[in-house]
């Protein structure tokens, strides 16, 4: 029995939003009389952090602290239309809608503040801590709370805004496939290091190293959560999961998590991640979205690492020990690696 180590690489890109566009999202932003803002959406938080990212975008655009913004989502009576949380579209599509709504609300807020301070609204700025002040004369300032009270009870203004973001639907040429699939793309490179046991066919993933370009990491912790979780899913897809182990044979389908194999805590490996930010011209603060793509490079990187370790190509997923052993048998044994290093 010998354990062979190898490294493999994959580079990928991923389109942001529904293919061909045509997938709008709306947002409404309004202030209560104490200067606290609510974002009303119908978008879904699947655990990816939809509510948190839109909250940060709203606070940044309004120029108020994050504590003063709350995101209320997924009630069809109060939240305006959103296509849904899929196609890596949440940050980009919904984020842009929230930004547009917050900009409109901010304009009213600044007008109301200007009226209270008896200055031109263009001479005002927010300090990000809940105050609006005259540029160059910060002693002349008013709190967002006092502006909200004044707007509601004295000026009769509604500090609110509406936003929508829509990438217009692209045509497709039936003959050539000419089309505009997406307005921006995220990018990644992932290197996997594996160990292959040539007696059992077991593949252990030892380490992953990756670089992701995501436009802007609006919240680095949420990005990390996505990239780590996505890599787990990619590894699971590559080596473990399937409801039809001998596809297209439909038999032997699993019925629960005892029969459906996925990596457990002991199978997870260290993952060293770098995040690059090349802002998308039409992204909210340049953001694209890490959602779906982070599972993708893991699959081929592992397959390529197995080739590097033992010299066999596996073109069918999942790469089970059975498939590894059959491939090794066909090859007449394992080749030695040229690239492994820990």
């Amino acid at each position: 029995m010998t354990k062979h180590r190898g490294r493999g690489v994959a580079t990928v890109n991923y389109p942001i939003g529904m293919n061909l566009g045509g997938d709008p999202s709306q947002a409404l932003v309004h202030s209560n009389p104490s200067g606290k803002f609510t974002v009303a959406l119908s978008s879904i938080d699947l655990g990816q952090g939809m509510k948190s990212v839109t909250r940060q975008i709203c606070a940044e655009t309004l120029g108020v602290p994050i504590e003063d913004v709350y995101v209320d989502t997924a009630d069809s009576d109060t939240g305006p239309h959103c296509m849904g949380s899929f196609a890596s579209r949440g940050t980009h599509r919904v984020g842009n809608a929230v930004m547009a709504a917050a900009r409109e609300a901010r304009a009213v807020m600044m007008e109301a503040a200007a009226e209270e301070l008896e200055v031109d609204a263009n001479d005002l700025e927010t300090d990000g801590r809940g105050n609006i002040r005259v540029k160059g004369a910060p002693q002349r300032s008013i709190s967002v709370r006092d502006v909200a009270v004044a707007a509601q009870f004295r000026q009769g203004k509604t500090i609110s805004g509406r936003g929508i973001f829509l990438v217009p639907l692209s045509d497709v040429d039936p003959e050539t496939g000419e089309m505009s699939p997406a307005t921006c793309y995220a990018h990644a490179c992932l290197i996997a290091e594996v160990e292959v046991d040539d007696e059992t066919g077991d593949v252990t993933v030892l380490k992953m190293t990756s670089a992701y370009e995501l436009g802007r990491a609006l919240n680095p912790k949420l990005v990390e959560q996505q990239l780590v979780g996505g890599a787990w899913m990619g590894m699971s897809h590559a080596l473990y999961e399937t409801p039809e182990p001998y596809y297209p044979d439909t038999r032997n389908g699993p019925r629960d998590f005892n029969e459906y194999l996925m990596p457990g805590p002991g199978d997870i490996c260290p993952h060293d991640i770098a995040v690059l930010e090349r802002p998308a011209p039409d992204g909210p603060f340049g953001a694209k979205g890490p959602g779906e793509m982070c599972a993708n490079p893991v699959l081929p990187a592992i397959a390529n690492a197995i080739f590097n370790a033992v010299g066999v190509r596996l073109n069918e997923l999942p790469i089970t020990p059975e498939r590894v052993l059959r491939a090794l048998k066909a090859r007449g044994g394992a080749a030695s690696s040229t690239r492994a290093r820990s």
Partner: protein
Amino acid sequence: MLELRKDIFADERDDNLKEIGKPTARQDILGHVTGTSPYYDDHRFAGMLHLKILRSPHAHARIRSIDDSAAARAPGVKRIIRAADVPVNLNTLLSLIQFGKDDEPSLASDVVRYKGEPIIGIVATSERAAQEALALVRVSYDPLPAVFDVEEALKPGAASVNPTYPKNTFEYYGKYDHQKLRYGDADAAFAKCDVVIDERYQMSPIEHAPTETNGSIAVPDTNGRFVVHTSTQALFFSLDTSAKINAMQSNQLHFIGGTVGGGFGGKVDTLTEPLAILAARLTGAPVRHRLSRHEEMQFGSPRGAERIYIKDGMTRDGRIVARKVRAYFDSGAYTRLSSYAAVKCAAHIPGPYTIPNVHADVYCVFTNRTPATAMRGFGVTALDFALECQMDKLATAIGMDPIEFRILNAYRDGDMKAHRREAKNCALIECAQVAAEKANWPIREEYKRMSSRNGGAAAAPHAPAAIAPSRQAAAAPQRAPYDRVSAAPTQPAPSPTQPAPSPPPRAPQPAPAAPTGSSHGAPRFSSVFGTRRR
């Protein structure tokens, strides 16, 4: 461990921001870590009933008769729902965006087309009572021939799965059984290649395997409205689908969700809401319809399997000059969303590389298995697996380092993509450089200095006359596809299908002296590569 490389592309960003870029704790974190966030199934209502579904044991069969009289008399059973009770029984999800024909019944009436297809629903006072009543239903079937393999399904004489699409393929643009992508002339280009690699890749289907299974609770409200608590990942998509199937106005439905225990694409299909609402209408009581883990695993739609054939042609300097792809999406018995994925797949071909001749046919095929649906990376994940395994084989065939090989072929700003749009805002090269650096994977100096922002231009198809010139292609300067690194002319191929006998010449141009400091994409180096423009 996550490292932010703010140094790269810094000149394209304004980092003077207050809330953006901070690792702020999630708004909902306290609820999640203390187990108090309300999910759909945390709601309980007085008199709530439970809906369970009788499913087909056959992959393809004609239903001869259904006898549910014993089930109707079973303890706790309040109502049996049959196909005839569903106001608009036939639907297709993407009818909401006018894509495709209605092809899937909520409840089968005459033929079942996959194992697990819903036939009748039983509403009872408990899940157990509903489950036990299901066992009393007698259905007799005439089994029909079934087809499970995407290529078998396309052969003459194969069993016809879906009567809306009798030839077992989704119909594109009213005339094609596949989505086409044509750019340049791949077949002509293969003849000039030194290396041609032709491979077959097969993905397995996989489960979304969310912690929370699909489900919903429909509650009769006042004034003829219904409140629906749901696990959907697309609130209005599910609302509009449910309204259509129940022939209701959208403002009769009040959907509430937003906190979901994992979706990954498996909670777009609206598997439970339409019948939960129908059951609530028919009984006047709140009705819960949730999939058990067994149902979620066996009958909840999986990521479909894809079979992908790729033929690549390469010259000995490491430039890919032609890529031909034939891909089959296994949609299962009904369309759901696979038709969309096939178009997205075609748009993604040939991957993030500049290849002047690309030819692809992508099929959405019907088979007698559980309908597939969206899953994380829909239309792209399997293709990326195939493409990146292929890239590794190509690099190996000419003895090039696999990262350098990818950087060499990577798309740059200004390159023309196969779907005839200019590449912009590219960063594949920088990702490869940073990952190599972090992993101590040695790449040569000239590859470390390459940039997505330099060296790109529209790669002209080898046979421009074969295609209609696109707007961007007409405006962009033409250049040879291999002049980024190697100025050496391509040698004649010894044989179009034989790998080159010896490793190809390394990039002959010596690297200019490396400037100090970070080189990733910084514009001050444009002159270095500017000299290579022809």
